[in-house]
Every structure is written in structure tokens, then in C-alpha cells.
């Protein structure tokens, strides 16, 4: 796989998804960036706006094993990870065998993830971070690539369990899916209420996706841009040397180093998807909001005033100047 091949494949996948999904080009792009960056995505949006369809379409365009879990309050961790069941062999010998749960897939759709209890949610932690599962003391590796594409509904808060910070941090991106505009709704009606429903074609397999992921990590990042990322992440902390007024006032905890990793990984994928072998400052700026939105913990004042973390991040990006290379 070379840069040209990456770009071509990326565009093909994108086009296939766009055949089914109307609008949401930016969301589609960001989901793909997360996929090729090897990260997980949390899609947040009202019901019926196509979150699940987006994930299913993406899974269909990639020749990967797809699994879907509908999270409910009574969902148990074993329902996700799998469980050991007593098996009897032909010779009558009985033994426990591990029955793999839906997590053993390449693309896992965790629908309405915030409806499950924290215990069940945390069952995903190891899988998301390590790409492996431990059950009954046995360690099981999940075949790569492995993505968790979770959705959650921000409206119905009753009977939900907000994701803990630790788990939120494991998502590369948190994407907020907006309502489509009237034009997009008309297009949706045209596509979905006719006789023929559009369907995405498979354009890449698991090996291709793995190769693309590996290639994305090869993308070069100049020293001053690495510093730029670090300064942006540092700027989200109220304890930083020169925090912006919004950060100082509304933020309780800033983004973690994992946030910096997320920015840079996604920026690399963005760069290579545009046919470049180097990250630019523009790539970094484009990735700040989706990568850090869910990593900023607002303080009391921020919560009380309903401050949008995106506004804080925009202020940070505007404040943190892109430093040029140091004269050498």
C-alpha cells in the first residue's frame, strides 16, 4: 500500500458510504479517519438521524465481521464478551468452552451504549484499549482491525448511565450528529422511500484496512507540529502557564496525553487521505474538536452555564499560535 493507493481506497469507501448516507460528509470523514487511525468513535445524536445506518453502511463497504449490540440496562458483560459454557464431548467428557461474544468482531456497533450499566460498559474497556478480552482467567486476542462504533442518545437521560471519563477517553473521537437540513431530508426521502434502496458495495477487506492503518502511522510530522499539538493539549488545562480565560473559568480538567495522540493519529490519516506523507498544521487544527471534545471536563460554572466544550477548544486553537521551527 502506498499513499496513492490509500487515497484511492479511502475515496472509494467514502463514496460507498455516501451512496447510502445523505449529508454528514464531515461525520463520514471523521469516522473513516478514526477507523484508519485505529480508534473508536462515539456518535452522539438524536434517534432516527442515521447513526446506526452510518455504521452499518461502513461495515458493509468493508469486508469485515460486523456485530451489533443493543445496549439495555439488563445487558450483562458476558453478553458482550462471551461466556464459558459446559460442553460434553462425544466421548462423554465434559468441559467448559468459551463462547465468544459479539465483541469478537472487526466492527462492533454498540448501540445506545449509555443505556447499559457501568459494569457492562466497562466490559468494553479492555477490548477497546488492548484489543483483547480476558474471561475466566484466559486471555483472548481480538482479531485486528477492531473498531467500536458506539452511539448514544443525549435526549433521553432517564434510565441512562453516562459513560465514565475513563471510558470516554478511550474513544478517539466523539462526534455529534446533527439533524439534517431540509434539503438533506428530501434527499433521504428520495433514496429511502423508492423501490430500490441504495446499497454500499464492499471495496476493502481486513488486510487492506490493516495496511492502510500501518501506512497512516508512517506519515511524517515535523518537530514544530508535534510541539504545536502538545501546546494545544496543554492549553486545555486551567493549570497551564497561560490558559485562555474560558479554560481558566470553565474547565476543571483538560485533555489527557491520549488526546494529543488522538489528534496526531487522526491528523496523519487526514494527511495521507489527501495524498500527503506529512502532517500539516491545518490537519491538526481540523482534528482538535472531535478528538478533544469529550476529553475536557467542565467545572461547575461551565456546566451551570451550559458551555459547549467546542467553544473552549476553538478559543484554545485561536490562542495557541502555531510556532514556527526554532532557528537552528
Amino acid at each position, binding site marked *: 500500500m502506498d499513499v496513492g493507493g490509500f487515497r484511492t481506497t479511502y475515496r472509494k469507501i467514502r463514496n460507498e458510504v455516501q451512496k447510502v448516507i445523505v449529508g454528514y460528509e464531515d461525520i463520514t470523514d471523521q469516522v473513516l479517519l478514526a477507523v484508519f487511525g485505529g480508534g473508536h468513535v462515539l456518535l452522539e445524536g438524536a434517534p432516527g438521524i442515521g447513526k446506526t445506518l452510518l455504521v452499518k453502511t461502513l461495515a458493509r463497504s468493508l469486508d469485515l465481521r460486523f456485530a451489533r449490540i443493543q445496549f439495555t440496562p439488563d445487558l450483562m458483560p458476558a453478553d458482550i464478551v462471551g461466556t464459558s459454557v459446559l460442553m460434553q464431548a462425544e466421548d462423554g467428557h465434559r468441559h467448559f468452552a468459551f463462547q465468544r461474544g459479539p465483541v469478537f468482531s472487526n466492527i462492533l456497533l454498540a448501540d445506545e451504549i449509555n443505556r447499559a450499566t457501568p459494569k457492562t460498559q466497562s466490559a468494553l474497556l479492555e477490548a477497546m484499549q488492548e484489543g483483547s478480552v480476558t474471561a475466566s482467567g484466559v486471555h483472548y486476542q481480538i482479531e485486528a482491525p477492531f473498531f467500536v462504533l458506539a452511539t448514544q442518545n443525549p435526549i433521553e437521560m432517564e434510565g441512562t448511565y453516562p459513560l465514565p471519563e475513563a471510558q470516554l477517553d478511550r474513544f478517539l473521537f466523539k462526534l455529534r450528529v446533527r439533524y439534517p437540513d431540509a434539503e438533506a431530508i428530501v434527499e433521504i426521502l428520495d433514496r429511502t422511500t423508492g423501490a430500490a434502496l441504495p446499497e454500499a458495495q464492499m471495496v476493502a477487506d481486513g488486510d487492506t484496512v490493516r495496511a492502510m492503518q500501518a*501506512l497512516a502511522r508512517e506519515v511524517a*510530522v515535523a518537530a514544530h507540529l508535534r510541539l504545536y499539538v502538545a501546546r494545544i493539549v496543554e492549553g486545555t488545562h486551567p493549570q497551564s502557564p497561560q490558559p485562555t480565560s474560558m479554560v481558566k473559568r470553565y474547565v476543571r480538567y483538560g485533555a489527557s496525553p491520549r488526546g494529543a495522540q488522538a489528534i496526531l493519529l487522526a491528523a496523519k490519516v487526514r494527511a495521507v487521505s489527501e495524498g500527503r506523507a506529512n502532517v500539516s498544521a491545518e490537519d491538526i487544527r481540523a482534528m482538535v474538536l472531535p478528538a478533544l471534545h469529550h476529553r475536557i471536563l467542565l467545572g461547575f460554572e461551565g456546566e451551570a452555564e451550559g458551555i459547549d466544550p467546542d467553544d473552549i477548544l476553538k478559543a484554545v486553537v485561536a490562542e495557541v499560535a502555531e510556532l514556527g521551527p526554532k*532557528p537552528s
Partner: protein
Amino acid sequence: MISKEIARLLRGARGRIAWKRGLDTAALVAAGLLAVGFAAQLATLIVPITVPLIYVVAAALAVWVVVVLAGCLLLRPSERVAAHELDLRCRLRDRLATTLDLAAGRITTGLGDYLREDTLQAARAVDVRAAIRLRPVLFARQLLFLIAAVLLWELAFSGLTLPYTPARQTAMMLQAEGRQMQSIAERLARQATSRSLPRTAEVAEDLKRVGGGLQAQRTPGRDRAMAELQQIFDRIERAQRGLRDEFRSRTRGEGQRGGGSDPLPLDLQAQLPEINAQSQQMRELSRQLAQENATPDDISRIARVLSQIEPNLPTRGAGDARSRVQDARRKLQQGDQKSASQALGSASQDLSILSQMIEDEQGLSSAQGAVNQSQGRIASGEPVPTEEDHGSGLASARSGVSSAPRDSGQAQQTQDDTPNAPGPGQGSLPGHGQIQDKLGAPTGRLAGQRKRQQISSTEGQGAVVPVEMQLRGRTGQVTVAVRAIDPVIVRQADESMQRQRVPASYREIVRNYFLSLSGK
């Protein structure tokens, strides 16, 4: 390793960036300087300062040039900075900077070849001149605005002052000085015309011009006024040197020696009335001899008069006057009246020239004194003395030029024209006291003719010429209060002054103090 093409591109970019930085910095510095200059110009409305436009603009220009050149040399960016600059300006998406980092080994990637090729392709489309334009220079508008403001101010508002401010006070002082100077100039011009003094006439014209300039509504400012006065002063000095050279050339034939720029001898200046009288007398005698009907008695009387005049003739600067008088006497003895008359006429002419030179010298000296005093007053911000208490410059101008003997009527007329000169040490400032303050009604001493005296500046050298005063004394009885002074006190005072180191100028004060004790 970076390719030669990219290296060349970066070299060009570094040069252009250095120029750009130099120009921008220079414009900023020059604008700052002009802003300060303009602020200083505005301040002239209130504060009596002079802000010469030429200096402001020249300084801004010089600083601009120096900073541009220094900027080109010192503000040359590194390759990485130049690469970053090109990345930003040409939207190269950080390709150049990343490639440089790759070449320097700061990053490792399996896509190095692709990155280099991609960067090279992108760099080929870069036009460094278009990317890093030297224009527009930062702060260029501000710079132009400030230049226009400074020039406009100089043309339209320079010299204006706000009322009730120190600047207005200075302007009024300069205007008063100008009026005073013009008055002196007119007086000098009148005297120069009446006595045919060419050098004094020229200087009077200059003084009149400067005085007129100082009186203008928009005054030139203290420094410029001082500069103009200095020019006048220098011109007067040149005229004096010319005059003295001429005098020296006259005295050279007489075997006299004089200094390079020494003024005409004081004793000679003191003889001016006598010289004028002698010249007049010889002209009259010459006229009498020229008449055919002169009797032997007349001739013997004339010979007698000539024998009296001859020893009193000035010893220097009179040219051949003495020999011509001697020649006239010889011719008279020989009975050659006509030749004697011609010789006397020539001698009278010689004396007349000498008289003219002396008067020119005195006129120039008085003008110089007036200019000098004006300079001193302007420099110190001292108020201009009124016509009544006008100081020695005016007095010397009057007394110097018109030093011919006058009768009391003439003196009275002069007193009407010009105020009386104060005596030395009168008033609150030396030379500027008011007569009424100290002396009551003017006395005849002040109206009297004072002869000019000068003491050589070298200690122990030069002659001290006593002042000869023609006075009208105050009549009436003078009553002096008698106070008994204890001789013991006087002795104590004298002893005290002997013991203590009392400066000479204070001894009188100390003595008076002790004497005052005796009255208590």
C-alpha cells in the same frame, strides 16, 4: 539531504525574508521616530522647544537606511524558519519544514522518498518573489501619514503657540526682543546714513531683518532665533575684521604693530571728538589758504594754529596727515599757499577717513553688544528690558557712534530719543536696573557723555583708560546723617577680615555688617 532545487529555493527565501524584515523593522523604527518628532512638534504649542524639521526627517531617513541594512545582515532567518515561512505563504502544508526535519534526522518515516518527491513537486510551483513580497511594507501607511503630518505642521502651524503657556511667553519675549532689535537697527541705520558708515549700515540692515523676523506672528523659536543672532554676530565679526585689517594696513606704513583682530586702540577711539575737530579745523584752514586774498597775518596765524595742531595729531591710523601738516607748514614758510592748502585738504581727508573707521568700529561694537545681550536674554529667558531701562547695548550704541562732544542741548535731545543708560550695578540685575528705582530723578551724570572704556581680558596686560565724564552736578544742599561709629567695632571688623578668609567681593558686606552692629 535536501535536493539542490529546494536548497536554492530556501536560499532565495532567506534573502527575501531578511529584506522584508529589514524593511518592516526600519519602517517601524522610522515611524516611531517620526511619531516622536510629531509629538514634539505638537508640544511646541505649549513648551518653548524647537523641533527642526530637517533633523526629524533626516534622522528618520538615516535610521531607516541603517536598520534596513542591519536587518538584511542580522535578521537573516535560518533554513527551517524560511521553510516554515514558505510553507505558510505558499500553502505547502508544512511540506518544506517536514522535509528539512527529515533531512536533519529529526523524524523517521518509511515514506521519506515519497515525501521528498512530493515536496519537490510542490516547491517547483513556488515563486519566491511572489510569495515573499517586499511590498507593502508594514507601517508604510503610518510612515507616510507621519511624514505628511510633520511636513504639514511645519508649513502650516510651525511657530504657533497656545495662550497662557510657556511657549506663548517665549514667543512674546522673542517678539519683544525683535522690536527692541529693530529699534536699535533703525537708530544705527540713521546714524550710519548721517555719518556715511558703510559697514554699520550693512549691519543695521541685517539687524532690522532679524528683528522683523522675530516679531512675526509665528515666531521662529528660541533655538532658531539664537542661530540667526549668531549668524548676525558672525557677520559683525567679519565686518570688524575687515575694518581692523584696513586699519592695520594704514598703520603698517606708520611702523605701528597691532594684533590680528584687536579692536582699534581705545585711546584712538577716545580721541574721536578731537580728530573730528582737527579734521574740521584743517578743512577750514585749507579753505582759507585757498583764497587768494589771505594776508600775511592770516598766514602767520594759520602757521601758528598748525604748529599747535601737529603735536596733537593721532599717532596711528591717520595715514600721512602729520607729514602733510608738516609739508603745509613748510609750504607756508615758502609762501606757497596753494600747495599748503592742498596738503591741509589731504590731511583733513586722512583724518576724516580715520574718524569714519573709528565710528564704524564703535557702531559695529555696539551692534555686536546688542546682539550679544539679546542672545543672553533669549538663552536665559530673561525679560526684555523696556525702553526706559534698556541696557548698555543701546547706550553704547548711542554713545559709541555719536561720541562727538555735545552741548547740553544735544544731550537733552538724545535723552528724549533714547532712555538714559543705567549705572553699573544698578537694579536687580547688573546693567539692567531702573534709574528711578535707585536714584530718584535723573541726574546730569546720566545725560553726560561717557567715553568708552575697555580693559584687556588678559590679566596684568593692557592699559586701563580712565573714564572722562562731563557732568552737570546736582545743585542744592546735601544732608548726611552723622552716626558715631565706635572705633573698637571698626578695629574688630578689620581684624576679623584679616583673620578670616573673606572673598574680596564680600569684604565690604562683612565690614558693613560689623558697622551696622555699632548702631544697635
